[in-house]
């Protein structure tokens, strides 16, 4: 699945562009894809030494409360909290998309992995035929959050819900991601495709999934 991440400022903010965030506190849930998307959106707009981040809670409902309380001047959300924030009058100042990546144990059964991929491919086709029908799935993840429960399928911008069939990760993409993380000091060592990707298992799984 392709994940959408949006850099969001609260309604009363004077921030209108990602450039406006130079030297301003951005709350990130370090260690998650959302935070890495935040770094990438920020570094595309301001010099790295002007990127200022602070730790923010991983649950987006807690991060939303912190944003509205003024704990930081912007943060990054995925759905459904992008839609929640928009309904609350927040401003999207940058939007990006990134691949969710399946990480497998070394001893994963490639046939089970292939069956997983086959099921996912069928679901991708089903959802893409009528995305709005499946927006209620976002409700399930936040049963105690009225700001999510009050969303209707029509509230969502389905252009932010992007699904594609899973494919093997290209070595160049994996290398770029590793080297980008290393450039921020988020990971140690040099990229070695042979220790990161078992192409034999991956190839068998994707062959089964055809």
């Amino acid at each position, binding site marked *: 699945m392709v*994940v959408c991440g949006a850099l969001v400022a609260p309604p009363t903010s004077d921030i209108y562009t990602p450039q406006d965030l130079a030297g301003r506190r951005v709350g990130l849930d370090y260690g998650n*894809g959302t935070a890495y998307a935040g770094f990438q959106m920020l570094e595309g707009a301001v010099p790295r030494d002007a990127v200022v*981040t602070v730790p923010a809670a991983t649950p987006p409902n807690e991060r939303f409360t912190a944003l509205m309380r003024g704990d930081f001047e912007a943060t990054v959300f995925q759905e459904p909290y992008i839609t929640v924030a928009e309904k609350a009058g927040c401003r999207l100042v940058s939007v990006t998309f990134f691949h969710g*990546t399946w990480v497998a*144990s070394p001893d994963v*059964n490639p046939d089970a992995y292939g*069956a997983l991929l086959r099921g*996912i491919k069928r679901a991708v086709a*089903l959802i893409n035929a009528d995305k709005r029908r499946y927006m209620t*799935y976002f409700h399930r993840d936040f049963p105690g959050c009225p700001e999510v429960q009050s969303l209707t399928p029509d509230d969502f911008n389905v252009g932010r819900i992007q699904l594609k069939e899973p494919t093997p990760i290209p070595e160049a993409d994996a290398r770029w991601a590793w080297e980008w993380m290393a450039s921020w000091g988020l990971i140690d060592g040099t990229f070695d495709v042979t220790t990161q990707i078992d192409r034999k298992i991956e190839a068998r799984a994707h062959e089964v999934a055809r």
Partner: protein
Amino acid sequence: MALTMAIERVMAFNGLDVLVAKDEGFFAEEGLDLTIAGPVTDALAPLDQRTATNPATTQGRRQARGEAAMYQA
């Protein structure tokens, strides 16, 4: 014989396809008995002690314990 697999929790934002496939019975039809684990409830480092280079995340914890074969990062 059915294949079995457990994966870490997915949510709609990163696993809508998995959740729909499970509900529609696609995995069962493909011969896979898939278990989607619940959230990890381990205590994480306090918020003010987290940094970009010392983050706190539950991603991969069940896999590391041998409780799940795959997770979405």
